[in-house]
């Protein structure tokens, strides 16, 4: 089995590393002590892949993503993107949160997408920016809702709008923190399909944090499994080479599911 894994991992050897985490540690101060969350975590994210970071609640996967985004500073270790140290949030690494509130409620859907384009002078004119915004709203299948305010949208539509806003800035990587975690099961599946379509059309690199094993299997090229606490680091990084589109019960699906499931500390935490 170990050999098998190593052979599969060879598939990624010719990939370009886009983001590299070296021995990243992060702890948060509590009233009395400090709570270590990440302990010497190392990870490479390859250009063009979908990487799923999978782990139970509270394992530190969100903290990990926030270090990559540049929202928080790690205590030690380094986070590099294309060789440069990550020190602050930047447009080339767009974060998508689980929280529906990431859209600005005082702007319409179109204005939400348009505003960052104007701020960053992406298009040459306002008309060009408008064109780009409309194009990305179409990509996420939100055409017709341009003039709606976020509070008039369903949760799934809000996440689509957030994706359009992020993608319109043409980031190199999308950092997604359980983006579909608050959606009902059916909407979640349809947004997973949409995300795959977007990934195929734009070629954007995606790092996705989730606690949903099926989501990780359906979407990713690799699944980085974290234990109960990130202090233990990654249990294993599993290459997920199933043919797309992936369906539950398809060839190899249950094997990879069982493999991932066994790595997550669901059962043995009390022992």
């Amino acid at each position, binding site marked *: 089995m170990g050999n098998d894994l190593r052979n599969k991992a060879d598939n990624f050897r010719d990939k370009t590393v886009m983001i590299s985490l070296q021995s990243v540690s992060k702890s948060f101060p509590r009233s009395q002590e400090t709570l270590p969350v990440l302990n010497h975590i190392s990870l490479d994210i390859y250009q063009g892949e979908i990487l799923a970071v999978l782990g139970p609640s509270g394992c530190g996967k969100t903290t990990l993503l926030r270090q990559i985004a540049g929202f928080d500073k790690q205590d030690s270790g380094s986070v590099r993107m294309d060789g440069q140290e990550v020190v*602050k949030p930047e*447009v080339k690494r767009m*974060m998508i949160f689980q929280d529906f*509130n990431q859209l600005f409620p*005082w702007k319409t859907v179109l204005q939400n997408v348009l505003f*960052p384009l104007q*701020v960053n002078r992406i298009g040459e004119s306002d008309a060009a920016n408008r064109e780009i915004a409309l194009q990305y709203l179409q990509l996420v299948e939100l055409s017709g809702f341009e003039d709606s305010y976020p*509070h008039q949208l369903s949760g799934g539509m809000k996440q689509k709008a957030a994706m359009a806003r992020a993608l319109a800035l043409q980031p190199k990587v999308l950092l997604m923190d359980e983006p579909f975690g608050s959606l009902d099961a059916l909407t979640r599946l349809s947004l997973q399909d949409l995300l795959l379509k977007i990934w195929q059309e734009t070629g954007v690199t995606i790092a996705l944090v989730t606690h949903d094993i099926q989501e990780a299997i359906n979407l990713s090229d690799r699944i980085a499994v974290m234990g109960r606490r990130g202090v233990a680091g990654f249990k294993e990084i599993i290459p997920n080479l199933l043919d797309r589109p992936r369906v539950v019960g398809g060839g190899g699906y249950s094997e990879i599911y069982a493999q991932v499931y066994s790595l997550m500390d669901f059962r043995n935490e009390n022992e």
Partner: protein
Amino acid sequence: MKNKDSYGKKTKTRLLWIIVFLVIWETIAQSRTFPEAIFPSLPVIAKALGDSVVSGEILLQTGWSLALILQGLLVGLAAAVLLSSLAVRSRIFDGLVDTLTAIAHPLPGIALLPLIIIWFGTGTLAILVIIVHSVIWPMILNITTGFRAIPPIYKETGLNLGLNQVRIIKDIMIPASLPYVLSGIRIGWARAWRALISAEMIFGAVGLKGGLGWYIFKQRVFMDTPGIFAGLFVIVLIGIVVEDCVFAAFEERTVKKWGMI
């Protein structure tokens, strides 16, 4: 739609009660229980108001008062936004603003009048100082509360989208805290109106113009009770118009439309 319905209902109920008050008033006035100089009848008040409008005096005084209050509110609002932005950004400023507010907020503007007269005289500047004092502290309290209540996700998203610090304040923090800012302006407006009328009564006229407060005070000197009521009527009218036509309409077009309240 539901909002509009309940709004229409509220207006109807209000109108009904106002009519009831007016009828009671007129009945008492007509019964001659009190001398007319103390308790004038509605037609007499209406005539006093009409005369004063025709002569232009009440309009002039009202315009003068409104111009002052608007200036005071704008200065107060700008200063409050500035101080609140500094306070939520730096701990030192937070302490300073907190201390200043704790000291100055409980002081009624009118209590400061004697001091303000000594320092600033009895001109327009003195009135502006009182108005700004009356509005700035409650506004700071509201705006800092509003700023602190902003979900961190807005700011983080803003930073991720490439916004600089000025844009974060202008394009994120102010709209995100607009419900608080608005209620701050509402309180500020009410305080300013009170402070202004009191100050005008005490300061008297600067040249021809003494404002609405002076107008009312002057009518008492002449024992022109209907004139006093005419002045009070204008104050009430302005209060209702500003609340319903300015604040409510602004709210309807912003925070309500955005689903923020």
